């Protein structure tokens, strides 16, 4: 396991920022941390990066115990972090930025030069390596900040809202890069509000609201919510059809112009019962399909349920 936490807790005075977090993240996995603002995502990432201490519980990163303060520096050597704000030095060029951070990771001059060139090339910044960061666009700044996080070849990459405030094209570059990192065998933990992004790149996601509410693959979370949901499609839907569904005691979860979604979870009524009742009532049904919830719906249901 690249990351293992047990009862990981962080308090700020009386306030609980992260509460008894149990997490196992395998090497080479992209794990998404989802949650509303103030859910403890950034605090979790900062604890895993050895930036702030742990109030209670245990955590290991690459087998290194984070509760052992003498080991925290070793954790920082295997972790690369991209904070929410790119935090670049506006006066330094891309090449100078990477060289400076390479020095702080104790890299030799040759290793710094080689890795700087490689990262700048990979992230499409080589041609602009001698431009100061303040002159770069937001997207390019984010790419440079990503390069900075990777200068020391970390095994675990922590990305805090990596595509926030980026336009779709710039966000796509960052997303593709996350997949490249996975292909290289690196572990990536990404904090994000962009659920479609999590769905595209994450192997698993964890929904955090101080406590870890749910962990699973994006598909499993969607399926959990989708289970027992059926969409009935009508040639033309009449109010009487909806009334009939109410009479049958099924919960309507979504209603559109010519289709209606019902949840059969708490109902003894079967799909066949519903079809029979509707057809008897004069409805012209054109389709009955198992409904699929989006990750966003699953997220909202889980987070909403925890309020």
């Amino acid at each position: 396991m690249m990351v293992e936490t047990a009862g990981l807790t962080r308090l700020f005075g009386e306030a609980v920022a992260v509460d008894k977090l149990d997490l196992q993240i395998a090497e080479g996995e992209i794990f998404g941390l989802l949650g509303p603002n103030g859910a403890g995502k950034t605090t979790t990432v900062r604890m895993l990066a050895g930036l702030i201490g742990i109030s209670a519980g245990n955590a290991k990163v690459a087998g290194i115990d984070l509760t052992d303060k003498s080991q925290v520096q070793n954790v920082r050597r295997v972790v690369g972090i991209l904070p929410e704000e790119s935090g670049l030095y506006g006066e330094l060029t891309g090449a100078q930025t990477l060289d400076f951070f390479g020095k702080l990771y104790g890299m030799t001059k040759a290793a710094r030069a080689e890795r700087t060139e490689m990262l700048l090339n990979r992230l499409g910044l080589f041609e602009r390596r001698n431009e100061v960061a303040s002159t770069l666009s937001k997207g390019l700044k984010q790419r440079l900040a990503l390069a900075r996080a990777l200068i020391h070849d970390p095994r675990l990459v922590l990305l805090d809202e990596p595509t926030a405030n980026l336009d779709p094209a710039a966000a796509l570059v960052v997303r593709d890069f996350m997949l490249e990192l996975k292909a290289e065998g690196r572990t990536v933990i990404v904090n994000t509000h962009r659920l479609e992004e999590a769905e595209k790149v994450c192997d698993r996601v964890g929904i955090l609201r101080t406590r870890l509410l749910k962990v699973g693959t994006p598909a499993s979370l969607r399926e959990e919510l989708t289970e027992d949901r059926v969409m009935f499609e009508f040639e033309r839907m009449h109010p009487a059809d909806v009334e009939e569904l109410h009479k049958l005691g099924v919960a309507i979860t979504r209603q559109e112009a010519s289709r209606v979604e019902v949840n059969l979870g708490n109902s003894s009524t079967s799909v066949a019962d519903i079809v029979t009742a509707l057809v008897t009532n004069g409805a012209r049904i054109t389709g009955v399909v198992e409904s699929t919830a989006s990750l966003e719906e699953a997220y909202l249901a889980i987070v909403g349920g925890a309020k």
Partner: protein
Amino acid sequence: MNLKFVSAIMLKDLRVALKRRGLVIGLLVFPLIVAVGLPAVLTISGRNGHGLPAVVLPQLLSSFQFFFVIGSVTLPTAIAAFSLVGEKIERSLEPLLATPVTDIEILIGKALAAWLPPVIAAGLGNVLFMVLANMQTQKTLGYLFFPNPTAFMVLFVVIPLSAMVSVGLSVLVSSRVRDARTAQQISSILALPFAGIYITTEVGIVSLDVPGMLTLGGILLILVAILFVLARATFNREEILTRWK
């Protein structure tokens, strides 16, 4: 302590600081004005046979030298404020804190970057002042007034220590304010006690001779130690990421 990390941070901060034109101008202008201006005043006042009495000149020159001490207190505040508050505003401290560099290495690297240019500027200004002042003393006193033990004390003890006090105070102030100018202005208040010392020398309460300078050096050393302990407590990852405003 890894000195390579310290020097990397110091050089980076210097590189960033020296790209700020206003900061460089400030570093150059103050010592230059004092170094050239005060000897010029002596020269002008010595024209037409209305020269300063020879008995007054040594005391006056020692007092004038103290301007460089005041400069060494005010000049570091700009660099220190931009180095700490500037990074806080730009959010560039977090990536720095994520490296394996220790808190003390970051603190010392940043402190050296804020300390070195003002000390060099004040020191060089002081040397220029001594050379120009000597041209006057040669005529008025018949000998070269500088260098002398007091001047050495100012140059190698009081100026460096005063700048250290200034940097230490700037670190503390920077942790509690949100913009660099405020940090600089608050830290610059430190110039007031030094200006007070200058005034007391002018009215003859305090003497800027070697024992006086040794006493001042001792006080500054104690202040440096206290401020270092406080700055060390303030400048740690946990504090910076969770408590710094």
